[in-house]
Each structure stands twice: as structure tokens, then as C-alpha cells.
């Protein structure tokens, strides 16, 4: 084995595993000493096993395999995220190209941006009178902003030279948008899309907790109420792994566009 190969193995596998075992050890120590209500790692695995080995099983409305719950959550996130992108991208483009629009709407965006999902959800319930659209509304409201701001930044960062090319050739507004503005801003936009997806996934737990909808967040809250704490940990791990996977996928797409 060459030196660089062993180095790769060490940094790519052994050290991350070491980190994971360290945290699990800390968890085991905590549960066996001062936080006795916290289930141990072994107990968590035992109780969670049926949900992991039969991940798509449906035994009841609130008793389903973990991937089945994840799937419900992903669908919900996809809906909210799609709305966020569909509204956020044109909004960002407008902010990027128009100083008037920026002056009019930037302050209100800066005010709405830091509002927590826990605050949007009740408003969504008031507006839509149903938990499902309220949850999607919350996801959209919270995850839109990175897309808006990065798209605007992307458009503003387009070198004047590119726009001069469009002007000299007298490209139409539409052609300038599709042939120059969008391709030039695309790398920034994808950064926004990736950050938005991260937030959308972050919000899902809060949305499902408060609406009691079936999904990984709803399951977490229900099991807390049912005193099955092992499943809380199962849910946390699932949420983390899925969020990480989503981010990696977006990162790969983003990198392709940046390389182009």
C-alpha cells in the first residue's frame, strides 16, 4: 500500500469512525451515570431494530418503519422547497437587477428572514385552517431566503463585461436573461438552493411536531409523549443522516455547475 493510500484510509475512514465511537462512548457514559432516563446506545438499537430492519413496514398510522416516515417527510419538504424555489428565484432576480425593487423590498425581507418556523406555523394554521398546507407554508417561508439572497447576489456579481456583450449585440431582454444573466448567476443560485434545502429539512421537524403529521418529526414527538425515548434518538440520527445526504447531493450538483 502506498503512503497516500494509507493516508486516505486514515483520514477518510478511521478518523471519522473514531469520532463517531467517541460520541457514542460519551452517550453511553452519560446514560449510565447522571442522566438515567436517557436510553443507552445498546438499548436504543434494541428498541429501534424493528423500525430499521423493516424500514417500510406499516403497522398503524403512527407505527411505521423509519424510512417510510422519512419518505413522508421528504415529500412534505419537497413541496415546501419547490414553492420556495419557484418564488425565491424570480424574487432574487428582481432584487438583483432592479435598484427600485431592492429599495422597496430588501428591508421587509431582512425582517422576515430571521423569523423562526415555530412562529410561522401558527400563522399558517390560521390562514389555511389545515395542518398539511400550514406545514408546507412554513417550510417555504423559512427556506426561501438563501435562494432569494444568493440569486440577487449572483445577478449583482455579473461582470459588467458580460452585460456589455449583450448590449453591443442588442440581445433582447429575454435572450439577455436566458443566455447571459442566468448562466452567469447559476453558481450563486445553486449555493442558495443548497442552503435552502438544508433549512427546509431543518424546519420539517418543527412543522410535524406541532401539526402531528406522520413523518420523522411527528414520530419523534409522538414517541416522546409515549415515553419511548429510544425512538427520539433513532429519529435524531435519521434526520441527521438524511440532511447530510441531501446536502452532499446538492453539493455535487453545485460543483458541476461551478466547474462548467
Amino acid at each position, binding site marked *: 500500500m502506498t503512503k497516500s493510500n494509507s493516508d486516505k484510509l486514515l483520514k477518510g475512514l478511521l478518523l471519522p469512525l473514531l469520532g463517531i465511537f467517541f460520541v457514542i462512548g460519551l452517550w453511553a457514559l452519560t446514560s449510565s451515570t447522571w442522566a438515567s432516563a436517557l436510553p443507552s446506545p445498546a438499548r436504543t438499537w434494541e428498541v429501534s431494530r424493528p423500525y430499521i430492519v423493516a424500514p417500510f413496514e406499516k403497522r398503524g398510522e403512527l407505527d411505521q418503519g423509519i424510512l417510510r416516515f422519512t419518505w413522508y417527510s421528504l415529500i412534505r419538504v419537497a413541496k415546501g422547497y419547490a414553492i420556495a424555489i419557484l418564488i425565491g428565484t424570480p424574487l432574487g432576480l428582481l432584487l438583483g437587477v432592479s435598484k427600485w425593487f431592492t429599495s422597496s423590498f430588501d428591508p421587509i425581507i431582512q425582517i422576515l428572514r430571521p423569523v423562526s418556523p415555530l412562529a410561522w406555523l401558527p400563522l399558517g394554521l390560521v390562514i389555511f385552517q389545515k395542518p398539511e398546507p400550514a406545514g408546507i407554508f412554513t417550510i417555504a417561508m423559512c427556506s426561501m431566503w438563501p435562494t432569494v439572497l444568493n440569486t440577487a447576489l449572483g445577478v449583482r456579481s455579473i*461582470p459588467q*463585461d458580460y452585460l*456589455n456583450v449583450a448590449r*453591443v449585440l442588442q440581445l433582447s431582454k429575454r435572450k439577455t436573461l436566458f*443566455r447571459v444573466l442566468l*448562466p452567469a448567476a447559476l453558481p450563486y443560485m445553486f449555493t442558495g438552493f443548497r442552503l435552502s434545502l438544508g433549512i427546509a429539512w431543518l424546519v420539517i421537524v418543527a412543522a410535524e411536531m406541532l401539526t402531528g403529521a406522520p413523518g420523522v418529526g411527528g414520530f419523534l414527538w409522538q414517541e416522546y409523549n409515549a415515553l419511548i425515548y429510544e425512538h427520539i434518538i433513532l429519529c435524531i440520527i435519521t434526520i441527521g443522516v438524511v440532511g447530510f445526504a441531501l446536502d452532499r447531493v446538492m453539493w455535487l450538483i453545485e460543483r458541476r455547475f461551478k466547474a462548467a
Partner: protein
Amino acid sequence: MSAFVEMRGVSKGFDSPSGRVPVLADVNLEIARGEFVAIVGYSGSGKTTLLSMLAGLVTPDAGSVSVAGKLVTGPGPDRGVVFQNYSLLPWLTVFENVALAVDQVFAREPAAARRERTEHYVNLVNLGHAKDRKPGQLSGGMRQRVAVARALSIDPEVLLLDEPLGALDALTRAVLQTEIERIWRATGKTVILITNDIDEGILLADRIIPLSAGPSATLGPAVAIEIARPREHKALNRHPEFKHVRSTITQYLLGSSAKRRSARKEQPLPLTERAVVELGA
């Protein structure tokens, strides 16, 4: 009869934190059809602003610009521009960069004719072998050729070159200088070249016009270059006409910057002729 390219009493200033700065003042220019004119001046004296007004990207505060008898009110495909930093779109290939221009200006032609035209200009600048590469995969000289091909492909009346070779190494520069002259002779376009290299101006142009040091820069007296073409890089240095033109332009530029400096009550720096030749420094 009025000139093909004409600037009459053109002035332009820009706002700065310390008030309006006059960049160009009372610029007058007349260029005949098919003529190759070089405008030389210090960096930052407003050369690019001058060219941008010819291109229609910048509107003059006062005075008028006209090309082929028509008043310039905005950019248009009758004037091809090669920008200082090439301005290629990095997500398009060489072919696509040129095709963007061709497809826009010759939208009425059938697709096959447009493709042929694009091919023609890519080949004209000797980039046929690299037509599917993106600008990021090209050397500076190759990128510059793409920019030239794009500017020529729309068959403009006037070709505006803004320090097109400024960022290139000396060898590539010499090659492209020869190429620009070849293309000019092959197409018979009117060419306006902005440069800070007097030698380059003398090598290529029919006439060379100095732009005085800014602010409130203006064009000095034009000097006709009576050197037979094709002009040879090496032979040029010893040509008496070359020396004459060069010293005339140099004297004018030196004088304009000395005047500027004494107007600001500063000590004139000792300048050698060599330092002036590299005006950018």
C-alpha cells in the same frame, strides 16, 4: 463630405465622492472609411471611455458621435467591439461565443448559413482546432482571437479594439499584431485601436493620435504614418519615419502630462524617453 466616424466637441465626466471629474473634454475626431487609426495615451486618461462612447455603451455629456452619417445613440452591431479583457462568456465554447453574435445579428439567415459564417470566422483567427473548447481552457492569446472573431463575425462597419493585446506576453503580442493587420487588409474594415503602446500604434495604423493626460483629456494632432506595408517589426525600429512619429507622439504626451503636473503645482518627474514608451507603467 463628413467623415465616416466622427466625434464633435465630445465631453464626458464621472461623479466621484469629491465631485464631478471631467475625463474627456472637447474631443474631436474624424476617420475615413477603411482607415486604421490608433489612439495612444496614458493609462487612466480616458481611452476606454472614448471607445465606449464610439461603441454607444457610454453617452457623452456634450457633443456628438456619428458613424456612417448616423448619430450614435446606443450600442449596435454596426460597431464590433473587442474589449480589453476579452469578455467571452465562460460557459460557452469558442464556437458558441461566436455563434451567439452571429445568430443574433443574422437571425434571418437559415441555420446552415449562420453555422457556416460562424465556422468561417473561427477559422479566420486560426482557432478551428479549438472551437469546442471553453475560454477557461484557452491561453490569453487564443481568447483574444475569439474576441476578435466574435467582433468581426457580425460584419460591422467599424471595428473598435480596446487595448486588445495589453494582457499578452511580447511574443504572442507580435503574432497577433501581424494577424490584426492581416485581417484588416483582408476585410477592409475601418479600425480604431486603443493602446498604450506607441510602437504598436505605429506598426499597425495609418494615423496615430495621442490622447493627452487626464483629467480633461483631449486628442492631440494626428500624425500620419507614411511607412509602406507590410511593416516589419525588426526593420521598423531603424526606419527614420518610425523614429520621427514616435518622438512626435512622445513629445506631445510628455508635454501634456508635464502641463498637468505643473498645473497641480507638483515637481515634474525626470522622464526618459524609455519610460514614456511604456506609458502604462
